[in-house]
C-alpha cells in the first residue's frame, strides 16, 4: 500500500506543532503593512504529529540506503557511514553554533577545520586546502576559477580546458561555468588518455587538463608523469578530479603525481552520508603557487588561536554563505581521526581488492570494458547481453529483484552499455559473493528468459517507471484535483 502524498492526507484544522502563547504585546497593526501580508495561506498540508511521523517513516521504508544493503553505484563510493560521525555532528557545540558568533566563541570549530585541512593536505600532497566548496562540482568550479586567476595574474587567462571523454559531466560543466571552452581528449584503446592526442591539442591557450585518476573506468593513468610534463611544459596546470580518491589513500598522492589542484569528495572518500543526493563537501587542494587564490575566508592559526582570514586580495572570493558544509566536515574529520595512517591505507587496499574480486568473478559472464587489473571500481559492458535484446538498464532493474541497488548505468559514456560497479572497502566477501551470484544468475536469465530481465523489476511496489513520459509531460508539483 503505497503512501499517499502529504497533501492527500491533509485535513483542515490539524496541526503537528504549536508554539507557546505569545508573551509579548501584540505589535502595532502596521508593523507588517497590509500590502506585505499574504491574502491566502500557502496550501501546506495539515497533519497531526503522528501523521507526519507515519508518513516519513513509511516513505523511508520505501527507500534503500547503504544501511539496508550493498549499493554498488560506481563513482559514488557508497561506503558505510559510521554512526559516530553522526553523533559528533549533532553535539550542541557543532549543531547549535552560529557561524557569525565571535571567533573567540568558535575556537573548537575553527581548530577542527584547521586540522582537517592539515590532514587533507597530507593525504593529497598539497600545500593548502579550502574546505568551503559544498560538493565536488563546486570544488571543481573553485579549482578552475583559481586556475583562471593564476593565468590571469600571469597575463593571460587562456581560453580552453582539456577534458577526457571519460570524465564526469561536472568537469566540463564546471569549466564552462568558469568561462572556459571545453576541448575533449579521447581515450585510447587502453581506456586511458591518448597522450599523443593530448600533445597535439595542448598549446598556450590551454589553461588546464582536468583528469580523473584513477579514471572513471577504474583504471590508473599510468602515463601520468608524462602527462604532467606535457601539461606543465605548456604552462598549463593539471587538475585532478578527486572523486576516486578512495583508491589512492596512502598509496599515491595527487601532488606527487604532478597535479596542481585537486578536489575531494568527502561524501565519497571520507564516509559522510549521501543524504539521498546531498549534502556533501568538496574541499579543494592546491600547490603553493595557487594558494593566494583560495576562496575567502581561509582558516589560519596564530599560536594557539585559530582565526578566519578575510583579507586575501588575490582570492577568487567566497563560494558559500559561510564556511561550507561544516556538519559534513565534522563527520569527515571524525573519520580521518578514526582511521589514522594505517586505516587510510587499509581503506584503499580493501577497495581495490574488492573491485578486482568482482572483476574476476563477473568477467566470464559480462564483457569487461578494459580487462586488466582495476583500481577501486570496474566497468562492464552489457554488449553481449544486448545481442539478446537486453540492455544494461534492464540488468540494473533486474538486480533490484535480487535485493541490490543497481550499479551506475550508461556511464562513462565511452563504454557502450556501461555498468560501473564500485564495491567499497566496507563490503564483505560474502556480500560480494551474493551480489556476483545475482549478476551471474541474471546473465543466465539474459540467455534463457530475456523478457524476465527486460520486464524487471517484478518485486517492487512499482514496476518500471515511465521516465520518458515524466520528461515529456512534466508534472513536478502536486495540484489539488479540481
Amino acid at each position: 500500500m503505497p503512501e499517499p502524498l502529504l497533501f492527500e492526507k491533509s485535513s483542515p484544522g490539524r496541526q503537528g506543532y504549536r508554539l507557546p502563547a505569545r508573551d509579548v504585546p501584540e505589535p502595532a497593526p502596521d508593523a507588517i503593512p497590509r500590502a506585505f501580508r499574504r491574502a491566502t495561506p500557502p496550501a501546506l498540508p495539515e497533519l497531526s504529529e503522528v501523521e507526519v511521523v507515519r508518513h516519513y517513516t513509511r516513505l523511508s521504508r520505501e527507500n534503500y540506503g547503504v544501511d539496508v544493503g550493498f549499493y554498488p553505484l560506481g563513482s559514488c563510493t557508497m561506503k558505510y557511514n559510521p554512526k559516530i560521525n553522526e553523533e559528533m555532528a549533532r553535539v550542541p557545540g557543532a549543531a547549535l553554533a552560529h557561524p557569525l558568533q565571535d571567533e573567540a566563541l568558535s575556537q573548537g570549530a575553527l581548530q577542527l577545520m584547521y586540522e582537517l585541512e592539515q590532514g587533507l593536505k597530507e593525504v593529497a600532497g598539497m600545500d593548502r586546502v579550502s574546505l568551503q566548496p559544498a560538493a565536488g562540482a563546486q570544488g571543481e568550479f573553485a579549482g578552475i576559477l583559481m586556475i583562471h586567476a593564476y593565468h590571469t595574474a600571469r597575463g593571460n587567462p587562456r581560453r580552453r580546458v582539456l577534458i577526457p571523454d571519460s570524465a564526469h559531466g561536472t568537469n566540463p560543466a564546471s569549466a564552462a561555468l568558469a568561462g572556459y571552452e571545453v576541448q575533449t581528449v579521447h581515450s585510447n584503446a587502453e581506456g586511458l588518455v591518448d597522450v599523443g592526442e593530448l600533445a597535439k591539442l595542448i598549446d598556450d591557450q590551454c589553461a588546464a587538463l582536468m583528469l580523473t585518476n584513477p579514471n572513471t573506468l577504474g583504471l590508473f593513468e599510468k602515463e601520468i608523469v608524462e602527462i604532467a610534463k606535457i601539461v606543465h611544459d605548456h604552462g598549463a596546470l593539471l587538475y585532478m578530479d578527486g572523486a576516486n580518491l578512495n583508491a589512492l589513500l596512502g598509496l599515491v598522492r595527487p601532488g606527487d603525481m604532478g597535479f596542481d589542484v585537486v578536489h575531494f569528495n568527502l561524501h565519497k572518500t571520507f564516509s559522510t552520508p549521501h543524504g539521498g543526493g546531498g549534502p556533501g563537501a568538496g574541499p579543494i587542494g592546491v600547490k603553493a603557487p595557487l594558494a593566494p587564490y583560495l576562496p575567502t575566508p581561509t582558516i589560519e592559526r596564530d599560536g594557539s588561536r585559530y582565526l578566519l582570514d578575510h583579507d586575501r586580495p588575490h582570492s577568487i572570493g567566497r563560494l558559500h554563505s559561510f564556511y561550507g558544509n561544516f556538519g559534513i566536515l565534522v563527520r569527515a574529520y571524525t573519520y580521518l581521526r578514526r582511521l589514522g595512517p594505517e586505516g587510510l591505507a587499509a581503506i584503499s587496499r580493501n577497495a581495490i581488492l574488492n573491485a578486482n574480486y568482482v572483476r574476476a568473478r563477473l568477467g566470464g559472464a559480462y564483457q569487461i570494458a578494459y580487462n586488466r587489473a582495476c583500481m577501486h571500481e570496474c566497468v562492464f559492458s552489457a554488449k553481449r547481453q544486448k545481442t539478446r535484446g537486453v540492455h544494461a538498464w534492464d540488468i540494473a532493474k533486474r538486480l533490484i529483484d535480487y535485493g541490490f541497488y543497481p550499479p551506475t548505468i550508461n556511464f562513462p559514456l565511452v563504454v557502450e552499455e556501461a555498468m560501473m560497479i564500485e564495491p567499497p572497502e566496507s563490503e564483505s566477501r560474502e556480500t560480494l559473493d551474493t551480489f556476483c551470484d545475482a549478476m551471474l544468475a541474471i546473465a543466465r536469465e539474459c540467455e534463457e528468459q530475456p523478457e524476465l530481465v527486460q520486464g524487471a523489476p517484478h518485486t517492487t511496489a512499482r514496476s518500471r517507471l515511465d521516465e520518458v513520459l515524466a520528461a515529456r509531460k512534466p508534472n513536478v508539483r502536486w495540484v489539488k484535483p479540481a
Partner: protein
Amino acid sequence: MEYIPNTPDDHRAMLATIGVERFEDLLTEIPASVRLGRPLAVAPALTELEVRREVGGLLARNAHAERYACFLGAGAYDHAIPSIVPFLASRSEFSTSYTPYQAEMSQGLLQTIYEFQTMICELTGMDVANASMYDGASALAEGALMACRVTKRSHLVVPDTIHPHVRAVMTTYLQGISHPIHRIPSRDGRVDLEALAREVTDETAAVLMQHPNFFGNLEEVEEAARIAHARGALLVASVDPLSLGILTPPGTWGADVAVGEGQALGNAMSFGGPYVGFMATKKDFMRQIPGRIVGATVDTKGRPGYCLTLQAREQHIRRERATSNICTNQALMALTASIYLATLGPAGLREVGEQCVAKAHYAADRIAALPGYSRAFSAPFFKEFVVRTPRPPAELNARLLTTGFIGGLDLGRFEKALANHWLVCVTEKRTREEIDRVAEVLGG
C-alpha cells in the same frame, strides 16, 4: 578496522580467485616514482571511545544556542525545531541513500522531493521548483545565471541591501564569464528605487532583491518588479521561506525567479552548513532550471510513481552545455525542510511568522527606548532590525555574553559607514524575559 569486514583470510581467498599472488600484483600500472613510500603523516588512529572524547571535546569549546540565548541572525537562524524533524530525517534509508537514479528502489525519497517541490511552490507562489541548491547564496547566483540564459542578456543589477556574503558568492560565480554587475546603494535600509530605475536598461538580465533584506527590512518589491519588467528584465528574489507563512509570496508581487536559504525551516545552524538553497520559477523557464527535479509518472501498470526528470538540463547528460554544474545537492536538508513544513502546516508557519514579528518589534521598541540607542531605519521589518548603538557593538556583545546571550551582528565588520550599527535578530524562540534582560544589560 571496524569499518572493514574482510580479514587476512578473506584477502587470501580473494587474491586466489583473482589469480594473483600478492596484492601488489594489482598495482603494477602505478609508476614506482609516484608511489608514496611511507605512511601518511596524519595523526594515529583513535578508537571510537577516544574520538568521542577528542572531537567531542574540541566541539565542546564552541559557544552554542543551547547555552546562550541567540540574538544573532544574518543568514543563520535559531528557530524552534520540532522534535520529530531530526528524528525522521535521520532515518537511515534516507540519509544513506544516493541521488535516486533508480526510481523503483527510491520511491520513498522521490516522493519526499516531489512534496518538497510542491511546498516550495506553495510558499513562493511559483509553478515549479527544483530539488535543492547548495545554499541560499549559490541559489541566487544560479538564479541570476538562469535569468541571463532566459533573457539572453548579461547585465545584472545587485542592490547593496543583499547579504554581503551572498553578493560575494554571486561575484565569484560570475567572474569567469563576463556579466557586468551594477550595484544599487541603499536608502534608509532599502533599495534606492530611483537609483534602481536609473541602472536598469535594455541589457539588464535581472534585478536581484533580497526580501526581507540583509537589514531585516521589507523591500518595496512590487515597485522593483515593475522597474525590472518595464525594461524586459527579470526579477530574481531571494526570500526567507519562513516569512512566507505571513508575507506575500514572490509569485504575486512579480518575481520571476524565487530563491532562498532554507536553513530556517528546521535545519540546525551547524556553524554555517549544511544548509539548503531552493529555487522556484514560472513554468516557461522550467527547462532552464539548474539541478535535480522530480516528476510524477506512471509505471508499466499505470500506477502513479516518481522519478528524476528533465535530466536533459543536467551536467551528466549535457556536460558543458548544462544549465549548471551542480550534481550533489542538499537533499537531506530539503527533506528536513519538508518535514518541518509538514509538521507546522499553514497555521503553524503563520504563528511562527507572527511571533517573530511580535518579538522582534517588542525588542526593537525596548532597545530603541534606551538612552543612546535608536533604530537605524524606519522601514517595516520582519525578524531582524538594525540599531544605532552608543558604544561599539563588540563591547555590547561582550557584556551580553557574560549574562548568557549571544548578541547581534556588528555591521561595522562589513562596512566602515556602519560602525556602531548592530543587526539584531529575534526569533519566535526568544522569550520576553530574555528580551527584557537584554534591554536591562544594554541600559545598565
